[in-house]
């Protein structure tokens, strides 16, 4: 009885001290502070909009979190988002009025791009940074060919629905994010696959000697990253009504920042997507905050950096490794 109580107490303090929780607390504190300064900022509609924006970053960060935990990094996510958002309208063929087939086709393509990344990292032993940077470069070349050619307005019902519908008052994008988050968290923390990813990132040599299928796991995480980036591209297309070259650009740094702000170690092996979720929300919140501040571009940039640094000081101690 007594022992049970202390165990619960221990778990409670562990949760209270955890990075994801701290990040959530910081987000809420920033929201409260900002709505005192500018009442409109804290309006329900605005916060909902911020979360909708965070959904895109959050989707990209889902794959990125997997990759980073596995000890890699994916620099091709921005290009994949763009390829998805620009490529999808070209696939909207008449036969399927819902548009689902086109979405599935695009997601299959972006997942395949991710798998190629994984192939390069696992089999060619190319450093993830180099492999994914090169992939991003390839995709830029591809974009010169495909972009601007035909109309790229989204005539896809499902895409439009995703970008604009609000079932039960909640934007469909947020619902999509919630669903993907649940799947990702389960895959990460409640399956053997997730455990393999952590093992791979913490010590690839030991993981391999313990029988972890290293190549397959590596390919899978990059495949997931391609998939979630592709999904983010679909969502962002729906929200904007139109895809354009460069639409994915903001999501590279944002996804990495969300992952590390959420407490995942960039060295791999430690972390959780549960941190990247508030990390993404924190990021859009700070961006919105500096947007409404009336100051010169230089000062706004300084303010942005200082906020990140300040929040990091509150939450970001790294424990020693090795």
């Amino acid at each position, binding site marked *: 009885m007594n022992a049970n109580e202390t165990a619960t107490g221990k778990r409670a303090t562990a949760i209270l001290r955890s990075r994801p929780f701290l990040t959530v607390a910081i987000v809420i504190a920033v929201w409260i502070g900002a709505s005192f300064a500018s009442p409109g900022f804290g309006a329900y509609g605005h916060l909902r909009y911020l979360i909708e924006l965070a959904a895109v970053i959050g989707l990209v960060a889902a794959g990125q979190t997997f990759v980073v935990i596995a000890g890699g990094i994916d620099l091709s996510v921005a290009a994949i988002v763009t390829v998805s958002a620009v490529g999808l309208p070209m696939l909207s063929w008449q036969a399927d009025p819902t548009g689902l087939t086109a979405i599935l086709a695009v997601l299959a393509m972006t997942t395949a791009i991710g798998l190629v990344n994984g192939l390069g990292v696992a089999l060619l032993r190319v450093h993830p940074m180099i492999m994914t940077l090169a992939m991003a470069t390839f995709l830029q070349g591809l974009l010169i060919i495909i972009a601007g050619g035909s109309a790229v307005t989204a005539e896809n019902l499902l895409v439009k629905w995703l970008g604009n519908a609000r079932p039960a008052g909640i934007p469909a994008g947020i619902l999509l994010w919630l669903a993907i988050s649940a799947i990702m968290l389960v895959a990460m923390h*409640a399956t*053997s696959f997730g455990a393999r990813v952590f*093992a791979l990132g913490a010590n690839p040599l*030991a993981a391999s000697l313990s*029988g*972890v299928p290293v190549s397959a796991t590596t390919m*899978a995480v990059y495949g997931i990253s391609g998939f979630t980036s592709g999904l983010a591209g679909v969502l962002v297309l729906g929200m904007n009504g139109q895809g354009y070259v460069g639409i994915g650009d903001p999501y590279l740094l944002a996804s990495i920042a969300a992952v590390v702000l959420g407490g995942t170690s960039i060295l791999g092996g430690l972390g959780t997507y549960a941190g990247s979720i508030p990390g993404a929300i924190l990021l859009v919140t700070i961006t919105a905050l500096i947007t409404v501040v009336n100051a010169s571009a230089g000062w706004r940039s300084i303010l942005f950096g200082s906020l990140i640094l300040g929040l990091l000081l509150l939450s970001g101690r790294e424990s020693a490794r090795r």
Partner: protein
Amino acid sequence: MTSTAPLLAARGVSKAFFGNPVLREVSIALLPGRVHALLGENGAGKSTLINLLSGALPPDGGTIEVDGRPVSRMTPAGARQAGIAVVQQELSLTASLSIAENIGLGAYPHRFGLIDYGELAARAKAACDLVGLYEPLSTPVGRLSLGRRQMVEIAKALYRNPRVLILDEPTSSLSATETKILTDLLEKLRGQGIAILYISHRLNEVMTLCQHVTVLKDGICTADRSLEGTDAAGLVRLMVGRDPGDLFPQWQSSPSVTPAVAVRNLSAGLMHDVDLDIRTGEVLGIGGLVGQGQEDLLLGLYGAIPARIASATVNGVSGLPGGVPKANALGLAYVPADRKREGLHLIHSIVTNLMLPGFARLPALKPRSRRAEREAAGRLAAQFGIKGDLGRAAQALSGGNQQKVALAKWMPHDPLVLLLNDPTRGVDVETKREIYHMLRNFAAAGKAVVLLSSDTPELVHLCDRVAVIREGRIVAMLERGGLSEEAIVSAAMGADRQKVAA
């Protein structure tokens, strides 16, 4: 004699990690010209004590004294100036630097502010000669086997011409031959009036080398006395607080004729053209000087490094496994020697470490049950005597306990062939006994064990046969009847080449 002041001493020092006391009011005094043994089970606090003595950690209470004077804040640099050198249990080497640069690290000779490579080469060479390290000084340490790295670590301590030399399990991955070199050397240094603190789980070494012993149990000093008139059993009694049984189990040889693994003309890494049969029901020892290719033999069989063969069968399937997952599926399991780099995920909890081979083999999307994992890990921990909170990161475990985790994690999978690379490295005597029993029971149950060991008595008392390896070849296959430490050592040295050939 006894009135000489201690060169280095700890007076009533205490230390706790995250509120868990590890040392409680421990005192120890190192006298010149004396080899002082520090004994205790895994996790007793030995390494922590020497970290306090060498300034790597500050004590929570108590004082450290050098030449009888308390030092207010000891640091590693200060310790070096005071003539204290440490051979760390977890090696302090940098893989990308050369042997010489590692030996000099933190104490480079310099001229005009630059490292004096001439002086460094000369002094590093002298230190290497003392321990019998003959590799070119420019070799990056990362290319050396664990045993050779251990020698570099020792040379690094000697390079500093210490007055006080602290050795934390220096022989844990050395074979009998290298150990002999080291004990002779320590004997000589003692004669020169150096104070030596010696930690080892190999009690016969302690018996031959040391004059005085301090015993730690759960962070408390339980004995501080002369070794005179004590035998190995007495030492164990001091450590565990009860009468020890025999270290090695009694057993009947019961190998079958059916080989679990049979390879012809295997070449992998340093090994070339090896023919080997591993029979079910036997413990097959692998011996030899360190770094002769023994490890590559195991890794080649395990599918972890590329291997060429003329033919092979593994548990009835022909061909060698093409990769570790396949090897696991065929019932092979491998326990590496370098637990930090190859065996464990130090930043992950002990539970996850213990469960990892399971995660690797179960279907990828199979749901995990944390409770079942905790229970399974708890059972393994109890079986192997792994101490500590299983939810904590493996890096918080003492060296010996880490080794137990690396071995224990395979047990739930009931492997048919265990490939063990120095599995008792750094393991305390009680646990060794348990491991030995387990290995023999394992063999008795009709499975096969390959035991690569640097601990020669282990090979003699535990194995049905011992393959001795030199320069990438099996130079002798000693059967149980002909097993002795001398036979193994001489085969390893190449003394009886003729005899084997005949």
